[in-house]
């Protein structure tokens, strides 16, 4: 039972949390994690928002992005500060490659089953996930890359600027955290601009609203679908690349490029998308911030020995999922009535 001592320890630690040094540390951690959560969920939510397909292969595509991207970073990295530029080159490469691959997958596999029940979508993409995971594992084995522990090569390519720890106002954080926050902000900005301010974004919103009407007005709907699926997969790939550099990972699971990446990414991505509301990009951003904050706080509670349960971040993530589904299944900003399919 909870004794007086436990409560007082808890209260003291909460007071401690609001000291500037601790607070800034947790805040930076929360924002950098939120960036990762938003990155892994963005592709999933865009695809669902337009096409209504739940992509269970999303985690595997993130893992593909991690391995291909890690390879690119290792190859092009010149060392030093220029490695940051190498990261962006690799990110662009991955985005292009996976967008094309995603578009091809949509044309070949997803298109025939659009009008079937969601169960088919789940099963089909799950099947693609099975195949992709195995192919990546076989590929990594052939190249002699370790499967269980994080792949070293891309980690060694992290430039010193990002790898070192900085201290501001008593709070210490890694350069990588700031880098991740930057990537997250830029990605959110670009995606928001793409959806709300470009011609293709207009097509996408039109198709989401009423695809038949959009078609009647001359929008090439099948092509828009293919493009959106491709972009969603491309975003997953970039998220994967970002994760190869992040050893802390999500939910305290440990990061880096491993063959567990696909499953350890898929579930949090689903949680963020559902909590935000399926298909709402703004909702996904809000949910990413929320989940990132919960992850950072629960991690802090464990690290500071307020709670002795190491799985707290992970378990709270799924508790959030269950609570949201049980109480408000359409999520923060989702508009669809979901209880009746």
């Amino acid at each position, binding site marked *: 039972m909870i004794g007086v001592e436990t409560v007082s320890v808890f209260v003291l630690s909460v007071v401690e949390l609001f000291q500037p040094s601790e607070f800034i540390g947790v805040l930076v951690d929360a924002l950098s994690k939120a960036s990762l959560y938003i990155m892994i969920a963005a592709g999933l939510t865009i695809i669902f928002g337009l096409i209504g397909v*739940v992509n269970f292969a999303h985690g595997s595509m993130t893992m593909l992005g991690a391995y291909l991207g890690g390879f690119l970073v290792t190859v092009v990295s010149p060392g030093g500060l220029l490695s940051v530029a190498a990261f962006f080159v690799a990110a662009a490469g991955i985005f292009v490659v996976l967008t094309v691959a995603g578009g091809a997958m949509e044309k070949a*596999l997803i298109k*025939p*089953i659009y009008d079937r*029940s*969601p*169960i*088919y979508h*789940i*099963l*089909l993409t*799950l*099947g*693609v996930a*099975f*195949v992709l*995971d*195995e*192919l990546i*594992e*076989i590929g990594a*084995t*052939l190249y002699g890359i370790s499967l269980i522990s994080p792949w070293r090569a891309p980690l060694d390519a992290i430039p010193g600027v990002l790898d070192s720890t900085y201290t501001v106002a008593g709070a210490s954080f890694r350069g990588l955290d700031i880098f991740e926050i930057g990537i997250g902000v830029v990605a959110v900005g670009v995606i928001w601009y793409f959806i709300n301010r470009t011609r293709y974004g207009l097509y996408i919103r039109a198709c989401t609203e009423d695809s038949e009407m959009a078609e009647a007005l001359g929008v090439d709907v099948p092509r828009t679908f293919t493009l959106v699926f491709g972009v969603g997969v491309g975003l997953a790939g970039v998220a994967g690349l970002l994760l190869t550099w992040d050893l802390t990972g999500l939910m305290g699971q440990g990061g880096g490029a491993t063959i567990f990446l696909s*499953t350890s990414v898929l*579930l949090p991505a*689903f*949680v963020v998308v*559902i909590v935000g509301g*399926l298909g709402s990009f703004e909702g996904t951003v809000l949910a990413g911030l929320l989940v990132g904050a919960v992850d950072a706080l629960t991690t802090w509670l464990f690290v500071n020995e307020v709670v002795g*349960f*190491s*799985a707290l971040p*992970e*378990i709270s993530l*799924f*508790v959030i*999922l*269950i609570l949201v*589904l*049980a109480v408000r*299944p359409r999520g923060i900003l989702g508009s669809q009535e*979901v*209880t*009746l*399919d």
Partner: protein
Amino acid sequence: MDLPDEEGGDDEGRLSSFAGTAGIYLSDHAVHLAVIALLGLYPGIHHIVTGAVSASGYVLPPVDLMVTVFYFGLFAMSFDFISGYTGYLSLGHAAFYGIGAYTVLMVANGLVPYIPADTWFVASIVLAGLVSMGFAVVIGAVSFRLRGFYFAMITLGFTQVMYVFVSRWRYPVAEGSDPSFGISANPEVPGFEIGIPFVDLVSLEFSDSMLAIGRIRGDTVSSLFGTGIELSASSVSYYVIGAVVLLCYFAMQRVIHSPFGRVMVAVRENEERARAVGYNVFAYKIAAFSISAFFAAVAGGLFAGYRRAVSPDETFFFMTSADAILSTVIGGFGTLAGPLYGRTLQEVVENFLAEAPLVPGVLEGHDVLILGVLFVVFVLYFFTGLVGAVRSRVGGKVAEVVGERIRNYFANL
């Protein structure tokens, strides 16, 4: 082992004698009998054929791989029971498999309060099933408010919470070992026996030394029913586990062909209409879910008894559910026996990749790659899997077509 139909058809009036009824029953179940006979003879067939032609070992998996087909096939069947027949995709089914496995081992290690460690294995399997049913009622009461993708995700959420919890749960693991590696039966726990309590007559070996049909692992039989046929340890496991799985199959088959099962299918086909007709679909769904959870836990119990050690990754992790989905879709979604065939195919491929020459070594252990491609093809073109493919070839349910042919044959004599 396809599903025979309950309505005997127009033959029933004509053949009203006892022999006629028995004939209809037998002809309806001809496919069942054939499959059971084939599976029953498999260890012998495998022994003889691989003894004669050693290359056949590339195609015929060894008997201990076939044991996996039984317990995992039962788990996949229980998944199919809820998902294939009511249309609700339970991604959290691994939880019930895990509850079964953990309950059985915890009972055997004496870790469950009020339950003695020497409880019969059959009793602890039933207990595991009941515990699992309790969880299913609670999870179902929350989850069945949702449909489609949302139902799949909330069940997934529940199983992941349990998975994370069990991976860190110190209570059932031995002192100093990591809970995420799982639990194992204490060395002093004797072999888990399958049998009927208080009945010592049914035993693979006619001797009074054994109370049960046989131990789930490690028993050998020197003379089967006094005929002098020897059974290896893996053959005994095969028969003992197979017997339980067969019993569970017929129990589930019985439920599906009952009026209750018809309502399950009605929920899948048109839930609104089923509700409008007056069925309390919510209660039906929860009942079907808990029946399914019972058999999933039995499968988990058999798995734990056979392996004597289980880890959270093999039981509670959601990819275990995904494995069951793989077997189910390949064998036939919405056909009760399909998952068993799907798992059989998987073991055949796994064995082939490991044994056959000319297969690149890197492919060993990657049977899911080949099965995954097949899975995608089946989802796109053949949603009822292998069983569906055979059905569309013979033009109807296999058991019905075969039964019909047999009856016609005897009628024309």
